């Protein structure tokens, strides 16, 4: 490496854009050139400090605005204006050249073709496309759930759980995020809503197992009671041991203990 190449690559090196091979070559050069090493050290130090120039997190309003924009775009795409189609036919460039009755004939023909095509696509293609469309909506909704669950506002996290309830087929990553919320969220209402949301997926063994494991982690009597009701409803006998452990805890509320005891009786 010569000084010219060193000058060319110095910013790539400082900003971490050099590949491994070039980086080794560059470091060899600066280590044998004290002046260059000093120069690079100076640049690297200030560059490193610019990492501290952090930005705040964007607010949830940004997500809301984006998804409402996406919804409106989706709606527009799904329902294209018939008037626009007709207009687009009417401005067919050669139409003005065609006179009188022929013009109307062409218009009627085009409208007929359009409507025929439209009905055909609505009936046949529509059915075919709806399946793909639904899976995309599910994917975007899953992303929204994950984003909202990370929000500091409890209302937003509740909104996330509400969105999760709308999912038809839930992904594992969403299930994991819901369990993380159930076991760690500081807000009781959010945890309660999460129990309800997860109850939609009790047909999945992993969800049943996760709910059982979660029993012992709950400190709020409301959540403990909600889980007890759910375990009875799904007849999950594996939960008995967890409930027994909970009964042995001194800090568990008396009303919750009564409810848990009743639930154990039902499950036995």
């Amino acid at each position: 490496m010569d000084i010219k190449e060193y000058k060319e690559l110095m910013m790539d090196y400082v900003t971490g854009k050099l590949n491994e091979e070039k980086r080794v070559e560059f470091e060899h050069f600066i280590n044998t050139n004290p002046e260059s090493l000093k120069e690079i050290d100076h640049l690297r130090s200030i560059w490193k400090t610019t990492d501290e120039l952090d930005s705040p997190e964007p607010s949830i309003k940004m997500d809301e605005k984006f998804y409402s924009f996406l919804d409106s775009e989706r709606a527009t795409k799904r329902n294209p204006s018939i008037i626009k189609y007709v207009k687009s036919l009417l401005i067919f460039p050669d139409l003005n050249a065609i006179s009188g009755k022929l013009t109307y004939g062409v218009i009627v023909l085009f409208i007929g073709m359009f409507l025929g095509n439209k009905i055909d696509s609505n009936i046949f293609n529509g059915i075919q496309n709806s399946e793909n469309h639904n899976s995309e909506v599910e994917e975007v909704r899953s992303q929204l759930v994950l984003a909202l669950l990370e929000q500091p506002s409890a209302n937003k996290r509740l909104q996330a759980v509400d969105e999760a309830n709308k999912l038809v087929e839930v992904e594992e990553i969403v299930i994991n995020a819901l369990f993380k919320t159930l076991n760690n969220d500081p807000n009781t209402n959010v945890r309660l809503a999460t129990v309800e949301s997860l109850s939609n997926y009790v047909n999945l063994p992993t969800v049943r197992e996760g709910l059982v494991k979660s029993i012992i982690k709950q400190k709020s009597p409301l959540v403990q009671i909600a889980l007890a009701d759910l375990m009875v409803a799904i007849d999950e006998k594996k939960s008995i041991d967890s409930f027994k452990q909970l009964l042995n805890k001194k800090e568990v509320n008396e009303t919750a203990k009564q409810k848990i005891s009743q639930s154990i009786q039902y499950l036995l």
Partner: protein
Amino acid sequence: MLKVKSGDIEKLGLLYERYKKRLFSFFFQMNHNAAISEDLVQNVFIKILKYKDTYTDERKFLAWIFQIARNLSYDNFNKSKNKQNNIDLEKITYKIDSINNFEEKFATKEDVTTLKIAMQKLTFEEREILTLSKLKELKYSEIGEIIGCSEGSARIRAHRALNKLKIIFFKLEKR
């Protein structure tokens, strides 16, 4: 992005989730206004839909999206007509070489605050190239494409901007 281009606009949601933080951070570093930055992020995705047909798979998506972001940021800058505290470097007599304990200088919170002020004293273009240089995935050839100059010129501009930042920082520190 190619799926969005072919009319599958649902995929825009995935692109949004993937790039929203980087875009917001870019705008925020440029204007220091969270509300405006959020609006600009939204505008990026409106533009993506509007100009989706101009995208080709030969282009790196990150470079393309940041070219849109850069143009929006520039328009916003022109609209707001923020007062720029451009510093005439020739008037700065402070010699950087006289600092012996350079690395130790960049250690405290006060230094970070000073650096923030120093960043704001750079011109829009200087701040822009340094902010874009932060994106490791972007090569200088792509940064050049975004800001409309050659690869070599992008490197030189970045180097000059960083040097200027360094000088302003030490001038502020000395006060």
